[in-house]
């Protein structure tokens, strides 16, 4: 990955109380690329997004976005930085008291002085890009899961952000919606010239659309590479994750004592 880095994460440690989540991770997200961050549940993927967005502060190390250390920014500086970021939440997080149109227009009305006619055109363009221009009058409760995710995507890119973060964008989607959302992530990133960070479990869909993949386990980066490198990797963790194997470096059983002893039995000899 030779392009100039938009996001640099260096020696970042983070813990919730005394429970360490990230242990000295180093990641680089170059400009214009779609990067996937993968790993099992609770491995710290979403925490990583929160550190990039400035919602959390690292215990040590730093996260730099576009040359600025996020945790050193004051409240105003952080909000200025966030205006240049977009984040798609796991289940969309659409504002339930607003229509699809108003959801997409929300940031434009809050952050710009654009006249309503121009906002209308921009909203319809964003909705058209995700294939939902015809749904602008609907309320979030009237949308399917896949549609809600696409509306949220349109809202995320409303102000053409330089960095787009996706928190489990494929969770709970049917195969068609999954392919649609996957393609949109790639197309929107390329059309906007943005950089995208996709936190996901979905290996197969991610391998199709991303440029580079990081694997996180037990708070550290255990593997990284292009989709081709990851697919052919013989590292046990990556192999288990990519092929969805039940047992391996990530064990099937939660640590416990001897089974026979727990059942007060002796194994047959």
């Amino acid at each position, binding site marked *: 990955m030779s392009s100039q880095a938009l996001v640099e994460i260096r020696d970042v440690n983070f813990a919730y109380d005394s429970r360490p989540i990230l242990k000295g991770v180093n990641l680089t997200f170059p400009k214009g690329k779609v990067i996937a961050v993968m790993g099992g549940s609770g491995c710290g993927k979403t925490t990583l997004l929160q550190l990039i*967005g400035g*919602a959390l502060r690292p215990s040590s190390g730093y996260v730099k976005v576009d040359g600025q250390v996020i945790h050193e920014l004051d409240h105003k500086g*952080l*909000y*200025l930085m*966030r*205006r240049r*970021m*977009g*984040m798609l*939440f*796991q*289940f969309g*997080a*659409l*504002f*339930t008291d607003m229509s699809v149109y108003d959801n997409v227009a*929300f*940031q434009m009305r*809050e*952050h710009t002085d654009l006249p309503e006619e121009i906002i209308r055109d921009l909203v319809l363009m964003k909705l058209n890009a995700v294939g939902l221009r015809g749904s602008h009058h609907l309320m979030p409760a009237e949308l399917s899961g896949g549609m809600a995710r696409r509306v949220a995507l349109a809202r995320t890119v409303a102000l053409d952000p330089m960095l787009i973060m996706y928190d489990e964008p494929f969770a709970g989607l049917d195969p068609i919606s999954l392919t649609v959302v996957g393609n949109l992530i790639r197309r929107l990133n390329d059309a906007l010239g943005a950089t995208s960070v996709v936190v996901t479990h979905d290996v197969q869909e991610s391998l199709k659309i991303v440029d580079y993949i990081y694997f996180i386990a037990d708070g550290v980066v255990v593997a990284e590479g292009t989709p081709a490198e990851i697919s052919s990797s013989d590292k046990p963790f990556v192999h288990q994750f990519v092929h969805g194997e039940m047992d391996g470096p990530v064990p099937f059983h939660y640590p416990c004592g001897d089974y026979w002893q727990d059942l007060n039995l002796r194994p047959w000899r």
Partner: protein
Amino acid sequence: MTIVEHLRSLGHRIVNAVWRIGYTSRFFLLILLYSGISFRRFHLTIKELFSSGVMSLIIILVAGLFVGMVLGLQGYETLKRYGAESALGSLVALSLVRELGPVLAALLFASRAGSAMTAEIGLMKATEQISAMEMMAINPIARVVAPRFWAGVISVPLLSALFSAMGVFGGYVVGVVLIGVDQGSFWSQMQAGVDFQHDIVNGIIKSFVFGVAVTAIALFEGYDAPPTAEGVSGATTRTVVESSLTILFLDFILTAFMFQGE
């Protein structure tokens, strides 16, 4: 449990309570600090005025009517013993304007609108709408909490006034129309007995204070609610309980200051 464990548990509760008071105070100060948007973009506050104030009108008006009617009945029965039925208007009006109007309107507001505010904000938090707003560089306290706060502060005195007006009407219906108290003495006694500065203004001050307390509690509980179904339901219950006790406590304090030594 040993004595040490009891002491530790007690200390933990006290520390938690003090921490919570500090957190609530900070939250309240932040609401005041970020209130500018509620007035610059007053349509945000008007929208909340509709959902918390206007939508509470029915329960306030109906409750006010019945409370006034009960006051008319009970007041007449008591005053008759002393041959002072003509003072019924004064009794009904003073009871409502000084005490029952502000207190009952605020209690009803806490149950109807306060609980709704808590549930709404708690659910916004649980469904990551609050986090989404923060990631969009929009301050949720300024955009979501402050307009609701000022809507509550404006609504409670107005609802309280309507409660009292409806109560006076209820007292009139029972006392004058049904029982037959003289209409002229009902109104003239009321006019003579109620002092604008001493009774009405103090009643408005009371309802303003209750409005601040109830709305701040409701918003804080919603904002602080754990993002789960159980967390939101617990926060809604706490809003009603804490608001009710706070209203009654503040009523005692305010009454002691306002009407002491009459």
